[in-house]
């Protein structure tokens, strides 16, 4: 479904002992929305004082273009209005500037890296290591994307 433009959601739990791989709605610490409306779709997974980091970039699906549904006017504002703490910026635009929309993933991972219980470098090294084994040519671009996302999130946090 991922490659066919459907909804993709992943749950990540870590700690000394993890049993169920599923996160119970209303209990997540962090929500990483890779697309604006998708951030809205999964807001309910967060606990009341959880933090949402949402890419304000949009991927408009065909059902909206066909006039069957409306794209929300401002998904980020809607999440905020629902009482959730949100840091948001246009990760898609940053990725396009760097030359490839797919870099948006590394931008968003950079964005979340300062809100995890371990240092941002750990996450960065993990990502770059994966590229080193699979596509070494992409290491530098992803390093830049990660750094740009980190900076953008810090800025968004100041603004919020």
């Amino acid at each position, binding site marked *: *479904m991922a*490659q*066919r*433009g*459907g*909804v993709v959601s992943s749950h990540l739990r870590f700690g000394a002992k*993890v*049993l*169920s*791989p*599923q996160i*119970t*709605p*209303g*209990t997540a610490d962090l929500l990483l929305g890779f697309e604006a*409306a*998708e951030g*809205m*779709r*999964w*807001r*309910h997974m*967060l606990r009341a004082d959880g933090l949402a980091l949402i890419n304000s970039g949009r991927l*408009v*699906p*065909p*059902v*909206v*273009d*066909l*006039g*069957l*549904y*409306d*794209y*929300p006017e401002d*998904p980020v504002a*809607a*999440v905020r209005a*629902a009482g959730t703490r949100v840091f948001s910026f246009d990760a898609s635009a940053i990725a*396009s500037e760097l030359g490839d*929309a797919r870099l948006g993933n590394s931008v968003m991972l950079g964005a979340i890296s300062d809100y995890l219980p371990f240092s941002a470098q750990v996450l960065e090294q993990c990502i770059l290591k994966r590229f080193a084994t699979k596509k070494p040519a992409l290491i530098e671009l992803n390093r830049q994307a990660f750094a740009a996302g980190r900076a953008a999130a810090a800025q968004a946090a100041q603004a919020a």
Partner: protein
Amino acid sequence: MAAVMPAPAQSRLLMSGNEAVSRAVWESGVRVAAAYPGTPATEMLEEISTYPDLYAEWSVNEKVSLEVAFGAAMAGSRAFCAMKHVGLNVASDALMTMTLTGVAGGLVIAVADDVGLSSSQNEQDSRYWGRFAHLPVLEPSDSQEAHDFTLAAFELSERFQTPVILRLTTRICHVKALVTVGERSMHPVAGFTKDVGRWVMVPGAAGRRLPLMFERESRLRSEAEVSPFNVLETGADRRVGFVTSGPAYMHVRERFPDAPVLKLGFSYPVPFELVRKFADQCDQLVVVEEVEPLIETEIKAQGIAALGKDILPRSGELSPAVLGPAIARLLGETVAEAPVATPMQVFPRPPTMCVACPHLGVYYTLAQLRNVTVSGDIGCYTLGFGQPWNALDACISMGASMGMAHGLDKGRADSEKDKKIVAVIGDSTFMHMGMQGLLNIVYNRGNVTVLLLDNRAVGMTGGQNNPGNGHGIHGEDAPRVDFANLVRALGVRDERVHVVDPYELPTLFKTLRQETKIAEPSVIITNRPCVLTDDFKARSPFMVDSDKCTGCGNCVDIGCPAIHVTRREKVIKNSGKEVELNFVRIESSACTGCGLCLQPCAPDAIVPVGELSMPIHVVKKN
């Protein structure tokens, strides 16, 4: 992919269940592994094919893959076969008799149930096949167990000379967790021993093997009673004791840390004595299993009191959030779940065909045909049922488009004499189970127009190699099937076989209209590759010249996700009719220049972004 050096023994790796099973297959010294792709099982063979020193193949369907693995096991090799749940239905004919012969080398069949229907035509509990075929079933609960149970399954298979079912679910297959891996060990291969009483299942011989099968089943039940995979965990809160298996165990443990739990990793044959012993320690039993009440029904039949699907959902995935309230209600407690925010209302995002997918033109064309019923099949092209095409009317199982179309033809109502019957089938699905249906149409003088969508890929499952693209599992050259010759050989007359470029809409339309008018079987084969394969060559992109766009919206009907409506406008035409105009833009960074949308655009508003990289032969309909 080429073989890489596997990580050394004792490494701790983050692995999906599929990866963990694959590693264990290699560690077990398996010599032959075969599969046909299907979510959520696909990654097993993909991963296994990267390990050195074993033979791996994509077979043309699950039945063949199981027969291949069984053959290897007859020869004394350890063999492995993986499939999604519905694949075991396809393979079941072979399964139901190999349980009589048993195996020489270890044979493990991994079957992955898509609980929750993330990407399947049904939800089913394949553990039934264990009962039906009297075969042992192992159910891991996480990646480490997926690894360890696979190793144990081979040992069990050889000790009892039986195929073993390793039952996985989507949650096990796809969740990544830490796994400690082990060493590879090799097993001597004894070779095939001629033994007609065992390997040739004629009635007399099969009849003699039946008692052996039942005797084996009872020995397996004794084994399950003492298996280290069936674990009785005591707990302080004995109001409810949980009997559970597979991923459901994790949800139970998470939600009820103090409850007694009987975890059945070796879940069939059910160890009744162990269940009885457990029941004595708890006030009441609740069986928590995905997805049918199998263990539950069997222990109830033994006279052991238990609840299960009486209080839990009959379908879909379980989770701590589902279990909590159900058990609270059972205990008469107020449901003190944390107040959970309700999901916000957002448009759905159904899967759709790719930008420039060669199927787009086919459905655009089918949507223009009148008085037609489209018998569909399984693959990316199933999505043609949806907007904007609405051009696929039925789909049940792989290959069924052929038989269903023939039945729609023969069973047509008197009022539907002129109805045209079209069957749409992908290349991989045709080779999987469609060829026989076409032969049947020809033989029985049916009247069906078959659209065989040859995109040289198993698109839906990620573009695996297959006989249609002429590459083997490692990407090496392999003999490539010639579909035109194949359908001719099945008896479709030469004049009724057409190979058409699916990006040439007028030709497609003309051929389809002509063939649906002729009262005999015909086959229209499309010949352009899936865009996600290396065979696909992107061209320079297009954009919309907004000065020229009249808002007719014709291009939107192609259904390419790169085309976006920027503005809608209602206008009253001279005739007095109100029409809606849709002004569009093309997301040029996504457009790969297939040229489809240019064809229905009357004012030529769709223009190249830069220079054309290749001349594009757009044939316009007047």
